[in-house]
């Protein structure tokens, strides 16, 4: 890097090269800035707008009716994946109870991966029971069929048993008011 050579095209034509690192930096910064906002744990549900698979889950002991796919037809409903071991479900629970009190939509529960079937029943007895039907899924049978990656997750099922929406993580009051309630009303207004 001694003196400039006489055979080079001249400084004027190559001056833009000095700005190249800056341009690359700006482009990369923009890329990384966008990447910051994207949650790598968020996975879109592959099941949206596809019918729920056929299933029949055993009921939680002492709680009567089991959860089966046939029971989900006829009206819009929510299907909530939970477990007594799941701390985020515990945090979400008051919201589910509030939704049940509001009486807008039925909530069904999938009690996922309990060590003992009674664990879910005890948990519901202690914290309140917002569910219409609750089915046990000890081996992730329905959970895998729904593409669930963790609890809680909540699916909106329309009257025909088609999956319309998925909430990953706890339902917040904001999600309920701004996303789920309008969607439920919309699904009821427009007969499929």
């Amino acid at each position: 890097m001694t003196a400039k050579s006489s055979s080079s095209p001249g400084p004027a034509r190559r001056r833009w090269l000095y700005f190249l690192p800056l341009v690359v930096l700006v482009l990369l910064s923009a890329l990384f800035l966008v990447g910051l906002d994207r949650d790598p744990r968020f996975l879109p549900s592959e099941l949206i707008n596809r019918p729920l698979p056929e299933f029949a889950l055993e009921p939680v002991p002492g709680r009567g009716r089991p959860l089966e796919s046939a029971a989900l037809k006829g009206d819009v409903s929510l299907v909530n994946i939970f477990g007594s071991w799941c701390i985020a479900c515990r945090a979400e629970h008051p919201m589910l109870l509030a939704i049940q009190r509001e009486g807008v939509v039925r909530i069904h529960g999938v009690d996922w991966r309990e060590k003992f079937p009674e664990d879910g029943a005890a948990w519901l007895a202690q914290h309140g029971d917002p569910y219409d039907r609750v089915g046990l899924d000890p081996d992730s049978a329905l959970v895998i069929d729904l593409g669930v990656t963790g609890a809680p997750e909540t699916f909106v099922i329309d009257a025909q048993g088609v999956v319309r929406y998925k909430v990953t993580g706890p339902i917040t009051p904001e999600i309920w008011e701004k996303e789920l309630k309008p969607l439920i009303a919309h699904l009821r207004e427009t007969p499929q």
Partner: protein
Amino acid sequence: MIHSPVRSGWLGPLALVIALASGGLAGPIAWAVQPDEILPDPALEERARDISQGLRCVVCQSENIDESNADLARDMRKRVRQLLTEGHSNDEVVDFMVQRYGDYVLMKPPFKFSTVALWLAPALLLGVGAGAVVLYFRRRATEPAAAVAVDLSDEERRRLARLLEDQAPPTDKETPA
């Protein structure tokens, strides 16, 4: 050497650290696949292991389900084996998981429009880098080494000559007594 107190002194704690690091979180068994999961048919089990190694544990993200100790990974392994036992082909089993979890469940993403950058960027960057290197050396080779001297002005030449003279080895008569 083996019996020296220094070595045996830290080998014990080291072994403990390694044991804790490798198995402490996952439990005492290093192998994720539990004995009760293994299929009696070795050929089928071999296929199950093969498929499992290509499927991502959706809870742990950077592990495949064959090596993951997560409960969901275990249940997915079982489902893979159940589907194989029912007579499904390897492709059908993989498709089954992709239909539920999307391409994300594949450790090796498929080549399609949305993944073009992912697959081609390394080759492209290598090409650009190689091109820059070739260009650099070609340009350097064509530039005569004497070109530097051509650029010197007369004044610079005289100064250079002076400097070179100054550094000439001293002769006997110039040496002070």
